[in-house]
């Protein structure tokens, strides 16, 4: 009888310990996933900031209507640290890709966001970031 009780106690101990590990792993997993998504959030926040300040129009259209890659490059590099790579592509809805600029970009480890502007024939600004 005492032996069975000890066995039961040991079993309960194992179950409780395992459950603790499972719960803790879930806790860590959330943090792990966040670091992946941080790039996407950063890309979205940059595009939102650009939409709010008019930089999006300067980058996607410029004065000539064909975009301004130099301006976009300067605007991006003031916001991103050197260890973050980027790929910015501006696409016209009728003319296709207008320009692409990149720096230390690794597509395999990238996350990104897009912003659609409908001035004139419309533009898609695609910003992807990688570490």
């Amino acid at each position: 009888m005492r032996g069975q009780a000890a066995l039961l106690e040991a079993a309960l101990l194992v179950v409780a310990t395992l459950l603790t590990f499972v719960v803790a792993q879930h806790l860590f997993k959330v943090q792990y996933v966040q670091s992946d998504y941080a790039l996407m959030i950063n890309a979205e926040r940059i595009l939102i900031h650009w939409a709010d300040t008019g930089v999006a129009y300067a980058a996607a259209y410029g004065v000539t209507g064909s975009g301004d890659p130099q301006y976009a490059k300067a605007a991006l590099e003031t916001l991103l640290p050197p260890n973050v790579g980027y790929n910015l592509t501006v696409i016209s809805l009728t003319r296709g890709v207008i320009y692409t600029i990149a720096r230390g970009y690794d597509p395999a480890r990238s996350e990104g966001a897009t912003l659609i502007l409908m001035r004139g024939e419309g533009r898609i600004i695609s910003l992807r970031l990688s570490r």
Partner: protein
Amino acid sequence: MRGQVLIGVAVLIFVITLLLLIALPKRTIGPTVAIENYTVAKREVEHILRNAAEEAAYATANTLEVVLSNTENMPDTLKKLYTQYFNVSFTDKVGAYAVLRGVFCELDTLDVKVSSYSGYFYISSIYAVATCDNGVMAFINSAADVRVEFKNLGAFGGVKAAVSLTRDQKQIQLITYAAALYNVTRDNTKVKPYRFPILGTFDPRESIWYFNITGLHYIQVAIPPEYCMMRNPTYYVAIATASVGEGAATVVVAKPSGKLCGT
């Protein structure tokens, strides 16, 4: 007894972990991404409204013949024409947007106001609200303040418009503009407005860009001698002004009351 203590410790660790999981601030990614995604979607729809407001101003100025052909209640006709172009432009843009994002939006409210003064009238405010099937709701609220002066410049006549565009009480510093002269001749019962381009063209891509830190923009237009010599002018000066992606725009229609040049 030793076993019970061990179980007690294990249960305590488990409960504490569980409590931490519940009580700690949820720094999970789901809600944060949802906020960013919503903000991007909202900005996109907001910018569709803004672009529609700007492009409708140029389209209106480009087809002012409709307004000028009928001298009765011109400000009201201007309002109707602008509203019509805003609707067309918005529908066109949300159609393309629906194809790209799979989100359908519609224009809920469009309120356009036209102000009239002696010798000129203009679109003084635009308020529009759009709602989409993904729950996004966006609006624009812009205003224009315009003062027009007619000047005798000797060989030429002059029209000087002081334009101030605002969005959400914030003055717009970068604008685009274009101006044209419409001469309205009456042949028996037929009214024939004839357009004479003065500054740029009524197309956002070919208009003139103008940046002024103060937000007050002076648009000065020279009237050619063949028109400014008229004692009873039959011409109107049309000026279209719009911001770049801010959603503020106006169309000014001015008519001098007498000779604008010479002695």
